[in-house]
């Protein structure tokens, strides 16, 4: 039986996280179908058809799927999913929102946030904020899986030539409605896709001071992230939070500035290739995971760093 991968997209662009999910799926089996559920999402389906390893694209184009409301999309995915061995989605907020609903409708367990595939039914995933790594075997006939994108390389976006099939009909549960959204617009790379991230914590003092990080980020082509404390304090918006309950990142270079290094923050960034910590407290736990630590006042050294890049 084939594997169904749920595409992450905004009706216009196929998101990179989908490509990591395809790689994970390719380790579970080799017939990979991709579902694009959206509204006016033909361009996404066309992009999905080109992804290397995808053998068929299913396009469900209907107003009911425009905003990825879980109540509607889960009905569609559960209906299609019955004929698959695996239903796989990236562990984005969309995937996390919709897939457990699909699993319950199919009466199967979900294995969340996998970082490795051992075999078609056995997966590795972090638990306890990454302080333990569990190997789990899924016993149900249909495996419902969300994929932590940092655990898998992206599949090639080009090279495939899958056929696009249209899925007829509409699943509108008519119990929820989209009201509005506030989407952060930024010229910088997305946190989860960036090669370099500069993150600030409570030590930044306020939101204005994040300009010190933005200046360095601009020099490095980096994304800007934050600790929970910085988000809670209102310095920066929630979509910048890195950690157990925020975004999980693993860039080539992660620069933590004025961040103490709580377990929950480390859970989101300790798989980064190189970690730099800048903190005025030499006892801060962040130094225990940092490749390069600089004990200093950030307000002094960040302008110097900007000047020297």
């Amino acid at each position: 039986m084939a594997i169904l991968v749920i595409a992450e997209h905004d009706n216009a662009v196929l998101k990179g996280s989908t490509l990591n999910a395809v790689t994970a799926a390719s380790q579970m089996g080799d017939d990979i179908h991709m579902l694009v559920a959206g509204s006016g999402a033909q361009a996404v389906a066309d992009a999905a058809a080109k992804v290397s390893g995808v053998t068929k694209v299913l396009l469900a184009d209907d107003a009911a799927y425009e905003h990825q409301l879980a109540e509607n999309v889960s009905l569609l995915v559960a209906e299609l999913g019955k004929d698959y061995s695996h239903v796989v989605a990236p562990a984005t907020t969309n995937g996390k929102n919709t897939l457990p609903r699909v699993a319950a409708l199919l009466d199967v367990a979900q294995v969340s946030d996998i970082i490795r595939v051992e075999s078609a039914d056995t997966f590795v995933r972090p638990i306890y904020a990454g302080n333990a790594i569990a190997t789990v075997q899924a016993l149900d006939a249909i495996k419902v899986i969300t994929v932590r994108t940092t655990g898998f390389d992206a599949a090639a976006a080009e090279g495939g030539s899958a056929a696009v099939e249209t899925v007829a009909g509409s699943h509108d549960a008519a119990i929820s409605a989209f009201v509005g959204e506030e989407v952060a617009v930024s010229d910088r790379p997305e946190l989860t896709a960036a090669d370099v991230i500069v993150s600030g914590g409570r030590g930044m003092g306020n939101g204005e001071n994040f300009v010190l990080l933005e200046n360095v980020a601009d020099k490095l082509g980096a994304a800007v992230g934050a600790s929970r404390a910085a988000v809670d304090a209102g310095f920066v918006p929630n979509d910048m939070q890195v950690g157990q309950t925020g975004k999980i990142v693993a860039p080539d270079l992660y620069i933590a500035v004025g961040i103490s290094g709580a377990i929950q923050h480390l859970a989101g960034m300790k798989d980064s290739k190189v970690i730099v910590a800048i903190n005025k407290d030499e006892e801060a736990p962040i130094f225990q995971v940092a490749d390069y630590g600089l004990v200093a006042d950030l307000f002094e050294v960040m302008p110097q760093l900007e000047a020297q890049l």
Partner: protein
Amino acid sequence: MKVLVTVKRVIDYNVKVRVKSDNTDVDLANVKMAINPFCEIAVEEAVRLKEAGTATEIVAVSMGPKAAQEQLRTALALGADRAIHVETDEALESLTVAKMLAKIVDEEKPDLIVMGKQAIDSDNNQTGQMLAALSGMPQGTFASELKIEDGKALVTREVDGGLQTVALNMPAIVTTDLRLNEPRYASLPNIMKAKRKPLETKTPADLGVEVSARTKLLKVEPPAERSAGIKVDSVEQLVEKLKNEAKVI
């Protein structure tokens, strides 16, 4: 309006868990346990709805070993009116918990169910969505704001791109994110009062749900440790190392 809140007993968030030497599981013997932080936020939200006159009754539910009653007492001390404990020593998967909650929802008929978005032990982030599916209810997951207006739940959700607001028919399920509220501390008089609030115990069999395992935990290992690197003395040295040693800039 009747509100149901769920609470899970988990390891205290300040404690770093250790893996058992035989790699069968984590070691929770003599570890400090507490109410899951996201569940605490759920209880707080329900209490605020009651204080605002929107909610009239708060029922707290927990599933697990006898000791989970401690967390239910905490919920009662924070302001829940009564508690239901489904007692079992068996390991419970999200789907089983959702099935048992669906039975309780059938009996209690709440107008709103507030749950944590994830438990900090299994980090699954599943149960609320599963319960929503089983009970045919809409879901507002990862909520940073909740308003009840004209018979709908208006939920602002923390999503990857920013914030999204949805309007849900009621009854509805809301799962909490960190910024929904800041939970209060239970006062001593309220802790005393909580001891006398009603706490009903049930078993999975009473609810007609069989506790079955759909997954098998094969092993649990400690994560690859990162070792601390070096301290640099200056920005010059840092930049030099990043360029020539780590080669990341």
